[in-house]
Structure formats: C-alpha cells, structure tokens
C-alpha cells in the first residue's frame, strides 16, 4: 500500500475506527451468547459408549463427525499436491548439520516417535489422537530433514506417495466397507468401532507425519523413478 503519508494516516484511522466498531459489535454478540443453552455436549456423552472410544473429542472427530475428518485429510493432501505442483524451490540446507543438532536429533527422534505412538494409543480414552500423534511424528521428520537426512531414491517414488495416501485411502475404504456390510457410510458397528477407529487413526498418523514433513521440505523429492 504505497500511498503517501497523509492519506495513509487518515486511512489507518478510518480502518481502526471501523474495525473497533466491528469488534465492539462482535463482543456484544458474544456477551449476549454466554447465556444461551448448552450445545451438543450431553448428546455426545450419551452416545459415547456406542462410539467405541472413551475420549469424547476423539469420538466426535472419528465417529460422529468422521466425514469432516475425512475431508480434512483431503485438505492436507491437496495442500501437499499444491506445493508439489508449484515446482521446486531452493533447498536451503546445504551445509552438514552442526554437532549439537546431530547429537540432539539422534537422541530426540526415537523419543518423538515413541511419544507419537503413545499419543496415538492413549487417544482412545484420554486427550491425544491421530492429529496430535501425527504432528509429533511430523516434528520428528522435520528434525531429520533439518539435520540433512533425505529419503533414499527407492523410497521417494510410489512408496512415499502410498504413505501420503494411506490415511485418506484407508478412511474411504473403511467407510465404503462399512456401507457394503449394511450400515450407512462410515457407520461403525459398536463392537467393531474401537478397533476400526484405532486402525484408521494409525494410518492417519503415518500420513499426517509424512505430509507435514513433506510440506516442510517444500519440493517433491527429486528422484522420480516413473517420471
């Protein structure tokens, strides 16, 4: 906004006034809201037992509103597709990692992977779950990338894409499978629900970890066997 100082100031003042008016109105609306009736909390609790998971948030994420999560996995994948379709950008890390980073990453990465696994497992009944575990896995991946590690040629092709697609693919396959055995799409029978959700969450964790690391790297691994 290269306008000269004078109009700049007037414009900013006007903007501040306008935005504070909006803020005031929104604050008033939020205040008025604080007295309105409760949301869907109790309904989630009542149906919690048949959802196959203890933690209500995971129940909502994976079971009640599983379709949202499915689409959101697609969002993650599309973001990566977008980044890869933009073509490569400068891979900034040329110099070998310093000693501190090297030893740190050697120590931390296994711990992070362990934490991710724990988060995934505990997600059923306590705070945790696929996204949190996936992001910790992603953090481990970022750490590795920072210390100069790169995926070998053999893994950079179809295998990497398979992992990236695993989460969403499994979700879709599970959903259609459940439909074929007579329920609605993504309708977990109470008995199977727990196991199935854990399976889906595991796949999702792997995918989210790989995707977040790939997003950090920024460009498609150069070696493409089947270009």
């Amino acid at each position, binding site marked *: 906004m290269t306008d000269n100082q004078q109009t700049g100031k007037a414009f900013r003042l006007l903007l501040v006034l306008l935005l504070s008016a909006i803020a005031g*109105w*929104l604050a*008033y*609306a*939020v205040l*008025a*809201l604080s007295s*309105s*009736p*409760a*949301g*869907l909390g109790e*309904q*989630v609790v009542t*149906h919690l037992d048949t959802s196959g998971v203890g933690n209500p948030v995971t129940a909502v994420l994976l*079971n*009640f*509103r*599983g*379709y*949202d999560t499915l*689409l*959101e996995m*697609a*969002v993650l*994948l*599309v*973001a990566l*597709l*977008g980044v*890869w*379709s*933009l*073509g490569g950008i400068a891979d900034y890390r040329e110099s070998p990692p310093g000693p501190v980073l090297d030893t740190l990453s050697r120590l931390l990465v296994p711990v992070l992977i362990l934490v991710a696994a724990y988060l995934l497992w505990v997600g059923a009944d306590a705070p945790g779950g696929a996204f949190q575990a996936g992001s910790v896995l992603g953090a481990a991946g970022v750490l590795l990338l920072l210390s100069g590690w790169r995926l070998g040629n053999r893994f950079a092709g*179809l295998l990497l*894409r*398979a992992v*990236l*697609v695993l989460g*969403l*693919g499994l979700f*879709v396959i599970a*959903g*259609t499978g459940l*439909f074929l055995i007579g*329920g*609605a*799409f*993504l*309708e*977990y029978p109470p008995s199977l629900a727990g196991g199935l959700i854990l399976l889906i969450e595991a796949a999702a964790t792997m995918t989210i970890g790989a995707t977040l690391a790939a997003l950090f790297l920024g460009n498609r691994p150069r070696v493409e066997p*089947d270009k």
Partner: protein
Amino acid sequence: MTGDLLGIPWAVLLILLPLIGGLACFLLPSLSKSLGLLCALAILVAVGGLGWQLAENGAQRYAIGGWGAPLGIDLYADGLSLLMLVMAALVGLGVSVYSSAYFNGDKARHFWPLWLFLWAALNALFLSADIFNLYVTLELLGLAAVALVALAGGADALNAAMRYLLVSLLGSLFYLLGVALIYHGFGSVDIAILAQRIEPSPAAWSAVGLMSAGLLLKTALFPMHFWLPAAHASAPAPVSALLSALVVKAPFYILLRLWLEIFSPTGAAPGQLLGQLLGLLGAAAVLWGGIQALRQTRLKLLIAYSTVAQLGYLFLAFPLGTSIAWKGVFYLLLSHALAKAAMFMAAGNILYFCGHDRITDLDGVAQRLPLTLAAFSLAGVSIMGLPPSGGFVAKWLLLETALRSGQWWWAAILILGGLLAAAYIFQVIGHAFTQADAPAETGLVPARMEWTAVMFAFAAILLGFFATDAFELIGIGAPTSGVSGG
C-alpha cells in the same frame, strides 16, 4: 433390479468417486489421463442415478455414520443441489476432455489429482447440509483452486494465485466465525435444525453479517471482485473455465442455501434491507463488470470481467425474492456455467493457436478457427440473454418478477446489462469477419478442444428450449419453499 438401483446412496457415491479418482491419479501419475476421464464419466452416471432417485422419491436426506442430524453430519439432496451437481458434472466432463488434450507431461501429472479433488469438494459442498462441513469443503475447494491457478507458472499466475489464496482464507475465516456464533447460539450446525431454531438475536445478526461477508468475498460480488479477473485470466484455459463456471458459484450456492432456509425467517426489516443492499451491489457489479469488460485489451480478461458482471445478475434476485426470481437465478447459474466454460475454452484455443489473446490482433486467427469462433459467438448469445438461449430464459424470469413487483429499476439494470454484454461480445466477434488472406490451414488446435467448446456453447443454446421440464427437476424438495410464492 430397479429396487436396489434406487437403494444405492448415489449422493455418497458422488463424493467418493472423485476422491478415489484423485487418490488413484496421485498414486499412478502415468495413468492419470485415462483415470480422470473414466472418473468424469462415472460421475455423470452417478448424477443421473441421483436425479432418477430424486424424481422417484423426492428430496433425499442421508445421515453419514448413521448418527442423524444434530450429532452427525447429513447429506441433503433436493432440486437445487441436483441442478448444481448436474452443472458440475457437465462442465466437469467437458473440462476433463478438454484438459486431456490441453495438458501433457509434467503439468498433466499435477493437474488431474488437483482437479479431481476440486470436483470432490464441489460435490461434497453441493450435498452437505452442515454448515461446519461446508467450511471444510470451502477450504478444500479454495486450496485446490489456488493450486490449479498457480499451475500456469508465470509471474501473473503466481501473483493472482497468491491474492486468491489470501482472499479465500479471509473469506473462510469470516464464515467460520459466523458458524461459531450460530453453533453456540442455537446448539446445532445442521441447516434443517437451524431453520427451525433460529430467531433474531444479536448473535444471529452478526452471524448473518459475517457469513454473508465471507461468502460474498469468495463469490467476488462487486466491491470484493478485485481478485477475480487476474485469477481467472492468468490461469490455464480449462482452469479458468472451471473457476468461472463452478468454483465461484459454490459460495453463492451456500449463501443461497442459508438465505432461503435460515436467514429468510429472520426476514424482519433488516433482512429486507440486506436483500436490497445485495441487489444494489449486484446492479453495480453488472454495470462495472460490463464497462470494465469493454475496456479490456486481452480476451481472457474480458471474459473474466464478464463473469463479474454475470455474477451481479445472480444477486438481483435477493431484493425480488419471489420463487420465479429464484428459478431465474437457478437457470442463470446453469446457462452461465456452460456458456462461460465455452468462452474460456474458445479463448484457450486462440491462445493455444497463436500464443496471444490480444483482441485487436484476433483478425487473422478468427478465420482459421471457425469452430472456436462459432463456440464463442453461440456462448455470447447466451451471455447476452438473447433468445433462444438459457440466458434468455433466466433474464425473462428476472425481468418478469422485477416488473410484476413494480421494482422497475432492476429491470432497467437487466436490460442495460444485456446491452453492455452485447457491446463487449460483438467487439470480439466483429474481428471474425475481417479479410484473411490464407484460407484456414486447420488441424493445429486439437479437434477435441474445439469440439468441447462448441458442444458447451450449443448446450447453453439448447437450454433455452428445455426450461419447463428442467424446472420440474429443480423444484423437487421445494428449495424455495421458505420464500413467498408469487
């Protein structure tokens, strides 16, 4: 046999097919072209199935995960969503055929998965009955569209894609804040339930304002249209066709859904005021878009500004508000999608053939691409709203409502918009009849690309003849029930 054919949840299939197609194209890039076309055909069949299902047993509500409305997410398909799905399927099939010839090599590898995910987002959006789910589909749509615009690679395309991304994110955040206020105010995110529970309150009004602002930003209504021309003009031709025909209509569809079912019951005085404001902005869009289109020197920018103008027409129905006006809007959505797709493909052919799309230098080209120019002019007839096209039917219905309800100024805008459209379209067609020395040595532009453009333009014209039975289909589930008859 027909028993279980009707039993298949075509709605879910419509979402899964492009998703699975996208995944497959991403996994096996060498097969992406054939997979994409296969997926396009499958979706067309699925839309046919859904249409038949709707015709048989009326509007469909499908509870995903079996939980039902307040807790789980529902898919709802009625005449309006069927119209949008048919539009997406038709334009999608044409664009897929066009792109199979337009993109090759590395670009194709990136195009097909992104395009199929965008298609999945569109189908999911047209079927969803849950406003938070609509937020997620809007995001998916926005990201895929931005990536496709950036596919063109030049400085303009990247710049336009960046601005488009920022605008899209801003719009989504406004929408999400609106969703938050509505959820906490009325305890549910399902449209049908909200339609019963909503009553005027500060939270409801601010939610209306926020969501409308977010959606208007993404629909590029007049004052907020600054991002559209650059994005639609610098994107590759099939992507521009997609953006103008489908992507920019999705947020409008959501606004329509909310307006018809949730906001109209709060149709107290401020509601009418908002309607009039939208009409005013629409009128300004029609005039501004038309004038700007006249001033453009590049063909694709001209068509992009024509989109801005045509979108203005859609908003004229808000102040009119009767069901006939909404029918006009529905029909304009469909005919504009087909006509605009044909126009952008024609522009793509010209760009493909001679490397530039400067209108003044179109003389030599128009002679050599008679089919492309026929497509452009036929599509132009529909955009201008001249009979016998689909655009004419829509213009007629809007005019009729405007005059019947005594608001003649909207009628004046409609007529003026039509004249402006005629001006900028004939400005281009005029170049077709200049003296060209060498006769057309055709065959340079792949036949598929030219014939898809002609097919779309011809479909836009044919729409003019099938209005009555189209309206029967659109009327399933009475999408405009919440609105006064008239």
